[in-house]
């Protein structure tokens, strides 16, 4: 954990970037609140967030203060963004009718509460001394994600043997300690093991081999 941590204190770059992000975000929040037909709690929560963030952002620009806990600050901002996304996504759902909850009430309540908590986390990150941002590794997550995506797109038409072997090969590239020959042998062993375990021992209906009616059109279909 410790090696990727950037120095946190006194970075003016963070202060400016953070303030700009906060203001842009609050503008979007305010817009979302404006257009949201739901009204009620969700709307007022959004307004509160927006006002708080605009004030905080402006104060930071004026005072030139650094973000003291970037890890919390950006984490909080991202939570607000997620909450806003959910409010936007549940925009079309009817809200309260009379005293009965509509389908949209629950999502909007939880999302607006998340927006408020996100703002709290961001404000704490702005004011209190906290950890810096951590560096993200690229290789591991990239190949692991790629391997899973390839598996998802090949399992239907190519069968488990090919899909598993290919994904194992791709995922093994995620570590700089993997050795070529060893990985190929291990991949073959694992594929054989899975081919026995899932379709036979656990009796799951997964095809082992490529499907006979494979065509260019349906080759990578996931439906």
């Amino acid at each position, binding site marked *: 954990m410790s090696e990727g941590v950037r120095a946190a204190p006194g970075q003016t770059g963070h202060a400016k970037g953070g303030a700009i992000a906060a203001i842009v975000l609050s503008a979007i929040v305010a817009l979302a609140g404006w257009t949201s037909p739901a009204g009620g709690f969700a709307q007022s929560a959004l307004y509160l967030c927006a006002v708080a963030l605009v004030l905080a952002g402006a104060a930071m620009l004026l005072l030139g203060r650094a973000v003291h806990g970037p890890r919390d600050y950006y984490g909080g901002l991202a939570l607000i963004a997620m909450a806003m996304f959910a409010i936007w996504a549940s925009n079309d759902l*009817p809200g309260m009718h009379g005293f009965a909850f509509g389908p949209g009430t629950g999502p909007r309540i939880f999302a607006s509460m*998340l927006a408020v908590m996100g703002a*709290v986390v961001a404000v704490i990150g702005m004011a209190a001394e906290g950890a810096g941002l951590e560096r*993200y590794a690229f290789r591991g997550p990239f190949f692991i994600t790629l391997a899973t995506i390839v598996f998802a797109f090949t*399992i239907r038409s190519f069968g488990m043997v090919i899909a598993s072997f290919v994904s194992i090969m791709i995922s093994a590239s995620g570590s700089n300690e993997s050795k070529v020959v060893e990985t190929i042998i291990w991949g073959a062993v694992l594929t054989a093991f899975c081919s026995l375990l899932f379709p036979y021992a656990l009796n799951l209906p997964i095809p082992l081999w490529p499907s006979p009616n494979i065509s260019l059109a349906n080759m990578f279909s996931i*439906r």
Partner: protein
Amino acid sequence: MFELISNLGLGMSVAVTPTNLMLCVIGVLVGTLIGVLPGIGPLATIAMLLPITFGLPPVGALIMLAGIYYGSQYGGSTTSILVNIPGEAASVVTTLDGHQMALQGRAGPALAIAAIGSFFAGCVATVLVAALGGPLTSVALLFGPAEYFALMVLGLVFAVVLAKGSIPKAIAMILLGLMASMVGSDIETGQSRMSFDLPELADGISFVTVAMGVFGYAEITRNLEHGSGTRNVINAKLSGLMPTWADLKASAGAIGRGTALGSILGILPGGGAVISAFAAYTFEKKMSKHPERFGKGAIEGVAAPESANNAASQTSFIPLLTLGIPPNAVMALMVGAMTIHGIVPGPQVMTKQPELFWGMIASMWIGNALLVIINLPLVGIWVKLLQVPYRLLYPAILIFCAIGVYSINNSPFDVLLVAFFGLFGYWLVKHDFEPAPMILGFVLGPLMEENLRRAMLIARGDPTTFVTRPISAGLLALASFMLLLAVLPMIRSKREEVFVED
């Protein structure tokens, strides 16, 4: 009393059928096998192995899952003692004295006392679950929607208060889970919510994909980041497995106290194995006449937390089986598993499916016995397993996850979701957000919404119903008190920090 015995008898008759016994054995073995692997805790283990239980009948599946849970926990203690790597959070304390004992060549007694302590705790907790199950179920029948809602709020507050790290962040994680659980069809109108017209999302996001991504995948990416490092497995021969008479005498009290503490903390919502292990260790150190021995290989320092975490992991089934409310993330996974088998956890399980309820309780005891009988002799194999390099391990974990998730609904889309939640979990870790409260919120979300809606409807839209009904008011008062208690010191210290730097 007589009823208790006849109920346990019924449970035994279910649990000792050859198939179920076999499933329990497999569960314990596989659970230990995976739990021993460094960096894979019970949550990841259960999430990973869930799919293989789907083909089984409900009773068998739950028995196997319970076995996996105990097994993975025991596997975690093994690695803490032998390699000083806690396989899971609950066995962090075990490393303190357990690894010291191993360095002194007493790995055998440390492992044995961990197993014996766990077994004793398991026996007591099983009886406790059986005894408390009945009365609590009748309490549960008094609960209306308002009370259920309040109880869930209390549970979530406990989870927040006891979570490590920042409280606002833990609350935010719960809310994120609640929000994500809203995706899918609305219970009352059937309208699809936040699903972007994707038919795959019409039933909501499957919790297995979230759990697997956020726990399993995120853990792999994190471990890859650290590189293999040096794992100094104790290579000393594990001769003299059995503890001496003096060891047993020294740890008897610790086992008893650990069991009592763990049983109580396990029942509380939000509690569970981790917190009780810490509490038991601290308590034992305070009680001891020679506290300076702790951290230098005191056998009580292994016995107390190990008994406590096993007792707690068992008694945390009580709120799940009687009230239908998962008190921690592992139990949240169990709810998911039950739902997949068409069982709605709650008071009706005991009355409508007594063989499932009591069979599971009986199998808890059997699972614990198996841990002692099977796992101790196999310690040598578990140690070998620790030497498997991570570069071989993680592609295997990954492919099991992928195939497992695919097999649930034969849906490639679910596999894509796992990849997405894997990246998301990685991001959460980078910002010190705890994924466990999120899973708890994710599982409780639909239940909370349903009860909130019903309570409001019954009260004709009057939100004061939650504070005018006595039980609900009491639960909510307790919840706000707990939250206040936890938040106040934090605000004070934060204020000080702010003042200091100006």
